[in-house]
């Protein structure tokens, strides 16, 4: 599978990638800035994400906010911030292409003049609401924060959550925001994709006109990968929940490194869906768990692998833990069966075919071209990426599992109903979240 493209780098360093797909009268615009919460410093966590909110509030020549003119032109638009990157996108009818590009150019080049204390205060309040709604007021919503604080040391960029600590958000200043923009939001740290019903030469001319005058910035050196050693920790967190839930977590390969695709496949074979080994044992046969999931989270500095299971009433987290470790160890020793390898392969092939159905939005073709360009320097890496999955064998799956998922060196967290610490994992230490307290 290939997604043909033309890449051109402007004099100011902006990567521009154009993919023509003229079957629908739509154009997807995607801008990635290679900055995320990993670029923050302790004491100012949450700045990258708060900054993303401010990017929708206005720029010098569009001071009235970004949603109005774009929605009126028929756009859908959004943005998101992760530990590694920040992205912005518009999906517009063909005729609104210039508008979408103009808007992205204006906030890339002329953002600061529209920034005001009132906007900053408003969006800081919105972000605090987002944090409370999405994490604090949701069952198990803080578990990931606990896990990251346990897996990583306090000076590792994945120690703190992308949404930020409330105290850090409260301490952030307008000057912090300005400095952040100057440091990270410039053409050389960005990648622009235009995909859809466009003529390549025509759109490249337009991009040159709109983005060309934006001054180049100081290059941003990529942060080096920092894969941490696995640690053995047993933790307890009490929450507003009904049933105790177990989280097992390990550090794992970085994005696109050897073992990354294998662990992604292993997650499915071990614990995702009714065909997985642990579903059959924990939910179907023994009925000791009621919810189950696993995942390899691939990131630039260090991956994380997790298996999550909720105990059925009357069953303990220790029981779940023992069975999961037993099954992981068996997989790490014997490897998957031939039918399992085949199933993983056909599911990957289908998933890659489904991934190119949409031009825009999160996960659309424009977003994926940007991801490959930013992380690999090669926009059309669809085949190379798929070949990692198709090329995985029983041996490589076994080896990746045994190399990374040591049962003796996992972070094991039990989230239990408040006031029911007797439901904890044996030998676990109670923890709170935020600044490692």
């Amino acid at each position, binding site marked *: 599978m290939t997604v043909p493209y033309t890449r051109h780098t402007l004099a100011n360093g902006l990567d521009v990638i154009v993919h023509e797909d003229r079957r629908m009268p739509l154009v997807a615009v995607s801008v990635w800035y290679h900055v995320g919460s990993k670029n923050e410093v302790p004491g100012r966590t949450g700045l990258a994400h708060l900054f993303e909110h401010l990017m929708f509030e206005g720029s010098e020549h569009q001071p009235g906010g970004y949603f109005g003119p774009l929605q009126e032109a028929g756009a859908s638009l959004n943005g998101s911030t992760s530990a590694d990157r920040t992205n912005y996108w518009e999906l517009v009818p063909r*005729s609104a292409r210039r508008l979408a590009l103009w808007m992205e150019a204006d906030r890339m080049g002329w953002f600061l003049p529209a920034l005001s204390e009132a906007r900053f205060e408003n969006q800081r309040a919105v972000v605090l609401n987002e944090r409370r709604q999405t994490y604090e007021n949701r069952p198990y919503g803080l578990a990931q924060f606990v896990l990251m604080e346990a897996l990583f040391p306090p000076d590792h960029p994945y120690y703190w959550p992308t949404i930020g600590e409330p105290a850090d958000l409260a301490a952030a200043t307008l000057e912090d925001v300005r400095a952040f923009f100057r440091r990270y939001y410039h053409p050389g740290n960005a990648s622009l994709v235009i995909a859809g019903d466009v003529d390549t030469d025509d759109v490249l001319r337009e991009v040159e006109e709109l983005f060309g005058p934006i001054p180049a910035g100081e290059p941003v050196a990529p942060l080096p990968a920092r894969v941490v050693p696995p640690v053995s920790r047993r933790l307890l967190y009490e929450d507003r*929940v009904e049933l105790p839930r177990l989280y097992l977590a390990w550090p794992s390969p970085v994005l696109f490194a050897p073992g990354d695709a294998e662990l992604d496949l292993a997650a499915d074979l071990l614990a995702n869906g009714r065909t997985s080994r642990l579903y059959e044992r924990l939910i179907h046969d023994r009925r000791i768990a009621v919810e189950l999931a696993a995942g390899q989270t691939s990131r630039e500095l260090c991956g994380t692998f997790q298996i999550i299971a909720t105990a059925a009433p009357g069953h303990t987290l220790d029981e779940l833990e023992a069975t999961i470790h037993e099954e992981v160890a068996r997989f790490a020793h014997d490897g998957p069966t031939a039918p399992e390898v085949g*199933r993983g392969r056909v599911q990957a092939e289908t998933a890659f075919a*489904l991934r190119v159905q949409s031009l825009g939005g999160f996960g659309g073709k424009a977003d994926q071209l940007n991801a490959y360009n930013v992380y690999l320097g090669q926009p059309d890496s669809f085949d190379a990426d798929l070949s990692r999955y198709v090329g995985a064998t029983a041996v490589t799956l076994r080896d990746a599992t045994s190399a990374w998922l040591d049962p003796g060196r996992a972070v094991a967290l039990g989230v239990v109903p408040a006031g029911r610490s007797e439901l904890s994992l044996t030998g676990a230490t109670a923890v709170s979240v935020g600044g490692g307290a």
Partner: protein
Amino acid sequence: MTPRRFDRPGPGAPTPVRFPAIARETLDSGLGIWVVQHAPVPVATITLIVSRGTGDDPVDRHGLASLTGDLLDEGAGDRDAIQLADAFAGLGTQLEVDVGPDATALSVTTLSRVLGPVLALMADVVARPRLAAADFNRVRELRLNRLRQLSRSAATVADRMYVSAVFGTHAYGHGALGTTASLDAITLEDTREFWTRMYASSTATLIVVGDVQADEVVREARRAFGRWVGSIESGPRLTAPDAPPDPRVFLVDRPGAPQAELRLGHLGPPRQTPVYHALVGVNAVLGGQFTSRINRRLREEMGVTYGARTTFDFRRVGGAFSCDSSVDATAAADAVRDVLTEFDLIREGPVPDDELASAKASLTRGYVRNFETGGQIARAVAQIATHGLPDDTFDRFVPAIEAITAEQVQAAAEVFIRPADATIVVVGDAERSREALAAIGRPVVVSAPEF
């Protein structure tokens, strides 16, 4: 650089929308086969619509439709639950079962080259489910635990409270999962009877959208579903919801909660309402979009929420209108007042021309985005099947929206936005918000939905 560089470009000319043609064939069993050719990628979305849903739950068996739907693929034909999941996975896909108020949808998105085998598996699931005791017991137990888990989700608690307050005892007035008590009452025999009475080829529609040929789909469907024969009465079984408005404040206590989950609204019209397009316009101005009045007020001016939206939940014989948000616990009462004020304002005067033009433009110019993927087209076709809409429904949308006037929007709002009737649900820390909520001037009842 010319000064023109800094003039914001306009939106350009509108993009016309042509919904693709639906090719139709009906098998002798009454099963409708609807095919839309859409071939940008070698993929097909297959949806089987069975025209029965949670609205068909017996009064003392809430959750039966959803439990039955869930059980279908826990063993069917020659395969048990795990073998069936393996069979779908071996084709690179999985089956999704969605049980809604008016219909049940079984869906698969997959490579179009495995259309035949996927249809055969789907036919097993719908026509030859085992509905065996061991699977029933396991799935019911999982659902009982799911209910326990959901009872701690503020958003689910709010939705349950809201739906039961607004629809009352009507068949739309309960959640798909039912309650612990109703699940305890349901027997294996109930699911078998429900399947026998409700899953019939005569009222089902197989929708296939993707890189396929209509004649090939019909041939494969005939082979797979040919033996599935069952006839039941078609058409709506339910009468329109008519619960009297209950404009009280239902306060569900969630001690220590840092946010308050809000729902405000009342009954609404069915999908087939003649003022559908005017109501889409009302919603776009009031709360359907980021730039709508309520989100602007609560998020961009007050900073008390991450987002607030209004929705008309258009169902087959009736519906509901609601505003949903999660707000800062200390701001719940003020947010409720602000929402009610916006409900009032849109009734009291015509929407200013520029605001209406902007709302209409976003609806019409962006409409083409709704039909990009096979999955989107399949969902649109499923609406036609579920609500009995004409085939030109989506082609008529843009001109119909363009034609609505400020007077029509106001007239529709006067009838269908009724702040005085609105039920108010607040899920939050009762101690922190009760007094302020009482000051709104409506009775405050501390309540909790049944789980």
